[in-house]
């Protein structure tokens, strides 16, 4: 019997008191003596040659301490992906040419903001305008303005222009599959440009101390930042220390290296003074990285009972002016396609296409909402065409436990079937579905609809730095300090790591203090951006605690003259099961260890890596190789209200039924779910980056409309528990922080259809589109009469 005291409990956040008192230090709160202010000169053109740059006047301005361009760099490139196939492709400042509005050209460090701004205005640049291209389909055409040459491997076979990368995969025979199908249909779904909307603007403070760079920067993982920063600065990792600071939200937008981070570092090295860069909200909206709009063309064939026979997908990613994470999205889109449903014959191709937009970053879900919106929408259409209900068609195709996937991953204890069943039961979906369409309410323009969407998400994969280490230092009073590279950006990493260590070492939460996310004092960590932190770093913490526990037990066994397996831990004491009076406090055991074991102060070490037998991450180009060890599965339902007169729609109630394995902290899981439902409803109804000619039109939160407190929907959730946590055992818990933006988006689309009969093929689901759909239905109805 498993008696858990900390794990599985909704413990309050460890960083909570700091956050509600204003004590939590974010990067913008870091102030150093003599600190200079940096600002960046950006391209006013989407595509242009830089003919000349004259820094003379700027450098001569009083109060200007440093000005840099690409000439002051080592010319070392970086990229979100750095593999042999996809080598680093971006310089930290533009060289000879700019490829998007807002691209960084020069940077200034000055005594204050006003001087820095004045200096930027004194930099003289001559441009020669080049033709830009913004539509990915136009960019692919032969003869389109070349932003970068197509990837050589693609160019060998295809004449498309501006292809940054391509993912191609498949199995079976789709043509035969379609021929064997009872029903086949083709659809096209488009998603739109959105952004992360982290509340804390990106801030970097860099301080060079003769041979060492200290950096405080808004990040999602200090070790990834260190690696990239050290690389472009051409410094050993030991000369770059990324310090801990709280992070005010990230959602994918703070993973990669940003130019301002390099500029802060370089200008500090050149001026000998600390330098701070703060991205303005306008810069973040118009020059920083956003998510990725995908066009999904999908053809699907099913049997009469709805069993999937064949599926063909072609995905075009408008991936901006450098490779960014564009090639990752077209790989991931394949993964999010194949993980939830069994598709015996699949053909997949995804293109990442350069355009003169800003570079793209991961954004929570990283392709999953876009793909699930397409697949789940089409599946409901198919279900209706062949007369199967939305639950049955999903149950028929949803993966089950212990299935081997085409990439040799295993679904293990997958609870997807249960997720779907529970979602259907809790909402009475089958009974509600179609109600307002069959018998429309007479005296109201309001229609209600319900829809379901499912998704699967990876829980950690292999990408630098691949593994996490954790060190636990026992203090000689029996309390413990945990050193972890994990970063808490709101999800609660520090809290769950503390829970695990408290459980494994039978300590109270308050006995444990965490030192985190500091590249010099904490072990390497995978970071908080590949949905693997609870699994990978959590297991490392568990292992470190086990390591310390074994040491404590060993010493205690000697002291107590029993074998270690007679001993158990309880509240900082080690007790003999056979004789409970025979007991020692941790303090006594640690003193004995120091006395009898050459001063061993009892340090626990742990490390973890997902897919430890896999040498490498899967191929982004071919999808070959294993992707993840744990798939998180979920089914989400949406209940919406639509006003037929105005087209205005809203999410009223969301239900998330998810298989996260085992929730280490159900309260934090709930926080993740609610946040994702909110983000998805922003995606569905409100948020859109509007652009014209490569310029961003809405550069503020007034016009980029993230949900406000008015827009919350009721959000319920239910766990499908498929794992158990046991002290001393590794666990395989699954992610809850990203995938749940996906099924709910699809569910909303399906619910709008259910309410109105309007099938939307693009996000966002604006009143204008819904009205257009309703008018079209009226026309069709009239034509039929």
């Amino acid at each position, binding site marked *: 019997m498993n008696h858990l005291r900390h794990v599985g409990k909704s413990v309050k956040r460890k960083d909570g008191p700091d956050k509600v008192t204003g004590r939590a230090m974010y990067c913008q709160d870091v102030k150093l003596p003599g600190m200079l202010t940096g600002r960046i000169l950006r391209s006013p053109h989407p595509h242009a040659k830089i003919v000349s740059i004259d820094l003379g006047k700027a450098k001569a301005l009083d109060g200007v301490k440093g000005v840099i361009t690409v000439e002051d760099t080592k010319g070392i490139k970086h990229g979100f992906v750095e593999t042999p196939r996809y080598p680093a492709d971006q310089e930290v400042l533009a060289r000879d040419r700019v490829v998007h509005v807002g691209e960084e050209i020069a940077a200034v460090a000055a005594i204050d903001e006003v001087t820095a701004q004045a200096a*930027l205005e004194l930099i003289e640049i001559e441009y020669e305008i080049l033709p830009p291209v913004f539509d990915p389909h136009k960019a692919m055409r032969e003869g389109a303005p070349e932003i970068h040459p197509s990837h050589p491997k693609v160019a060998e076979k295809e004449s498309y222009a501006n292809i940054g990368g391509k993912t191609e995969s498949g199995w079976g025979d789709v043509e035969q599959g379609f021929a064997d199908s009872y029903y086949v249909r083709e659809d096209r779904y488009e998603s739109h440009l959105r952004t992360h909307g982290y509340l804390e603007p990106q801030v970097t403070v860099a301080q060079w101390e003769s041979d060492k760079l200290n950096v405080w920067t808004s990040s999602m993982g200090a070790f990834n930042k260190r690696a990239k920063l050290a690389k472009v600065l051409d410094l050993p990792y030991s000369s770059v220390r990324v310090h801990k600071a709280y992070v005010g939200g990230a959602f994918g937008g703070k993973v990669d290296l940003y130019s301002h981070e390099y500029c802060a570092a370089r200008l500090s090295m050149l001026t000998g003074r600390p330098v701070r860069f703060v991205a*303005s909200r*306008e810069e973040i909206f118009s020059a920083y990285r956003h998510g990725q709009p995908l066009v999904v063309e999908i053809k699907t064939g099913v049997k009469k009972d709805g069993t999937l026979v064949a599926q063909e997908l072609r995905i075009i990613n408008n991936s901006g002016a450098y490779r960014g994470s564009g090639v990752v999205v077209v790989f991931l889109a394949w993964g999010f396609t194949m993980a939830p449903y069994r598709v015996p014959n699949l053909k997949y191709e995804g293109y990442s296409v350069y355009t003169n937009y800003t570079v793209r970053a991961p954004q929570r879900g990283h392709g999953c909402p876009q793909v699930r919106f397409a697949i789940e929408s089409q599946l409901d259409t198919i279900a209706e065409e062949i007369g199967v209900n939305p639950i049955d068609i999903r149950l028929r195709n949803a993966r089950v436990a212990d299935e081997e996937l085409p990439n040799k991953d295993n679904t293990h204890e997958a609870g997807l079937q249960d997720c779907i069943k529970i979602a259907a039961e809790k909402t009475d979906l089958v009974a509600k579905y179609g109600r307002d369409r069959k018998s429309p309410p007479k005296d109201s323009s309001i229609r209600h609809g319900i829809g379901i969407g499912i998704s699967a998400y990876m829980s950690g994969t292999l990408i630098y730095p691949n593994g996490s280490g954790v060190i636990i230092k026992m203090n000689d009073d029996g309390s413990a300090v945990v050193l972890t590279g994990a970063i808490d950006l709101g999800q609660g990493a520090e809290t769950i790591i503390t829970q695990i260590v408290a459980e494994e070492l039978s300590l109270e939460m308050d006995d444990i203090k965490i030192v985190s996310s500091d590249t010099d004092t904490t072990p390497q960590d995978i970071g908080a951006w590949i949905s693997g932190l609870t699994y990978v770093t959590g297991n490392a913490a568990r292992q470190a605690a086990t390591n310390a526990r074994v040491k404590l037990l060993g010493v205690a066994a000697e002291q107590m003259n029993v074998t270690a397996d007679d001993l158990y831990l309880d509240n900082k004491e080690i007790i003999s099961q056979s004789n409970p009076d025979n007991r020692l406090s941790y303090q006594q055991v640690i003193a004995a260890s120091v006395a009898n074991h050459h001063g061993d102060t009892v340090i626990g070490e742990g490390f973890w890596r997902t897919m430890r037998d896999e040498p490498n991450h899967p191929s982004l180009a071919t999808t070959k190789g294993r992707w993840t060890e744990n798939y998180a599965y979920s089914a989400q339902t949406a209940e919406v209200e639509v006003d037929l007169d105005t087209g205005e729609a809203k999410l009223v109630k969301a239900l998330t039924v998810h298989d996260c394995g085992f929730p280490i902290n159900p309260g934090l899981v709930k926080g993740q779910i609610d946040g994702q439902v909110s983000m998805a409803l922003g995606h569905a109804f409100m948020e859109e980056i509007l652009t*014209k000619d490569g*310029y961003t039109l809405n550069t503020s939160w*007034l*016009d980029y*409309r993230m949900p406000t407190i008015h827009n919350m929907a009721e959000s319920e959730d239910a766990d499908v528990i498929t794992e158990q946590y046991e002290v001393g055992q590794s666990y395989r818990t699954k992610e809850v922080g990203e995938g749940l933006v996906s099924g709910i988006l699809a569910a909303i689309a399906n619910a709008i259809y259910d309410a109105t009969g309007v099938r939307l093929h693009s996000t966002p689901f604006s009143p204008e589109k819904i*009205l257009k759909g309703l008018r079209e239905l009226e026309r069709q109805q009239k034509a039929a009469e």
Partner: protein
Amino acid sequence: MILYDFEYERPGSLKEATALLNESGDGARLLAGGTDLMPNMRVEVVTPSLLVSLSGIEPAAPEKRADGSIKIDALTKLSDLVDDELIKSELPMLAEAAHTVAGNQVRVMGTLGGNLCQETRCLYYNQKHDYQFVEPCYKRGGDCCFPFPGNDHNTCWSVYMSDIAPVLIALDATLEILGPDGTREIPMADLFTGDGLNPFTLGAAEIVQAVIVPPLPERFGWGYHKTTVRGGLDFGTAIIVIALQLAEDGETCSWAKIIYGAVGQGPLRPTTTEISMKSAVLDPPLIAVAASQEISPLPHHGFNKGYLRENIRVYTERSLVRAIARARDKS
């Protein structure tokens, strides 16, 4: 953070303020709540060299005068319009409209006069221009219009987004304006030029001092709707305001006003439709169609004309139904 220096004065009276404006010419601006001016100065679409702050002047409380009219100091905070008992009971439409402005902090900071005199808005205009849209548009003194390249130098389609001005027009309010030569009164509607480049008829040294709302007639009814994407915090997609009086029979409309906000360079009015409503028994769906067809909403902030017109039609009908019901309630 504003990145240039300016001077600042805080006079003790409006008279001193107008004198300061008069002396300083074009480079001076009034600062009331600052919720419109500060962001605009930050992105440098306006760059005054002197701010004349009104924060040293205490507004008078709203007052019911002997003739039944209500006088409201222009420096009254929007949140006070929401909470003031006199306004709530006598001019509920004004309180409701004030409650829809922006978010709570803006209502606490912003003043009635500032809300009325807010700058017109456009996605291109209201942002930094240091690397985006560096060529100034007509409204910024330049020679182009980004969103509507067909517009000539006389035409700016920036929209006036006050939630309150349309209500005050519907209530027949008068503005008391203080200038260097004394005060003058104008009907609320006369504040607007209809020109997006220079939206207001105020002289450079003139200050809106007070708003006077005449007593409401018997069997008065009103409807107010602000279409937004998020239900709060937003500027309006469209603002629909209706005021009317029913005749003693409770059926015939004596007169009606329909005012639209956020869809033109100033508030818009379907005057032909309004005339047709006079002495008529109202058919809300028909009127809504006529009114929404009569005006020409400007596309703005990503909303196109066709959608705006449709939204205006629906909410004109709904607001009219409410206005009629309220008028009957009062009879």
